[in-house]
C-alpha cells in the first residue's frame, strides 16, 4: 500500500470549460459528455496544475492510500 496524490473534481460545480484538460501534462482529464470533467486516476500524477487552472476552483488534490504499481511516469 502506498499513498498517492491525485486530482478530485467536484462534478456538481464543474462547468466543463476544459482549463484543466489543457494543462494536464499526462492528458489524464477528459470531458467526454460536455457536462463535467473526469480524471483518470491511473494516469494522474497529482501535480496539481489542474487545480491551479480551474476557474471554478472545483478541483482539490487528495491523498489516498492505494495499491498500485510504481511507474516511472513522474515529470
Amino acid at each position, binding site marked *: 500500500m502506498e499513498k498517492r496524490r491525485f486530482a478530485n473534481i467536484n462534478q456538481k460545480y464543474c462547468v*466543463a470549460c476544459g482549463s484543466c484538460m*489543457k494543462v494536464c*501534462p499526462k492528458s489524464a482529464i477528459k*470531458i467526454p459528455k460536455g*457536462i463535467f470533467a473526469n480524471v483518470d486516476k491511473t494516469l494522474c500524477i497529482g501535480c496539481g496544475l489542474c487545480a491551479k*487552472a480551474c*476557474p471554478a476552483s*472545483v478541483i482539490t488534490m487528495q491523498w489516498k492510500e492505494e495499491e498500485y504499481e510504481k511507474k516511472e511516469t513522474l515529470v
Partner: protein
Amino acid sequence: MKKKKHWYDYLWIVSVIYLTLGFFNILFAWLGLICFFIPLCISVLKGNKLYCNRYCGRGQLFELLGKKFSRKKDIPHFLKTNWFRYGFFTFFMMMFLNMLFTTYIVFAGTKSLDEVVTLLWSLKLPWHFANRVAGVKPWAIQFAFGFYSVMLTSTVLGLVTMVLFKPRSWCVYCPMGTMTQGICKLKHKNKAM
C-alpha cells in the same frame, strides 16, 4: 513538460482582431455570429463542449492576459451556483432579444439608426466613427451595433473577473458555456453517465 501547440491554440488572435475591427467598421460585428453558432452546433450534433475546451478564442485570451494581470484568487461561491449561472444566462438572452427587437423596429422604420455601442447594457458610447459603408440597410448596421455591444460587454465582464479572480473566471458564468452544458445535459439525460 510543454504540450505541443496546435493551430487552434492561437485563436485568441482572432478574438483580438474581431474586437479591433469593431473600432474601424461596425459591420465586422456580424462575424461574431460564428462564436454563437459553432458552439451551438457542436453541442447539439456532437453532445460535447469541444468549442469551450478547444476553440474558444476569448477563453484563450483571458488565459494569456491572466498570466500577468490576474490575482488568481478563488471565485466567490455564488458565481458557480446554477441559480446564478442560469439566471445570468436568462438575463443575457433577454438583453439579446431586446437587441433583436431594436433591430426589428429599425427594419420596420419605426426607429432611426442609433450609432452607439451600449456597454454593460446601460452605458451608451458614441460609435458613429465605425459606420463607414454607404448603401447598407440600417437594420443590418443596427444589428452590428447591438451585437458588438454584446461582445464588448462580455469581454469587459470577462476582463474584470479575470483580474479579480482566476484568468478564465468568465467561463464559469459564460452564457454560451451554460447553454452548451445545458444542451449536453439534455442530450445525455437518458444515457448512463
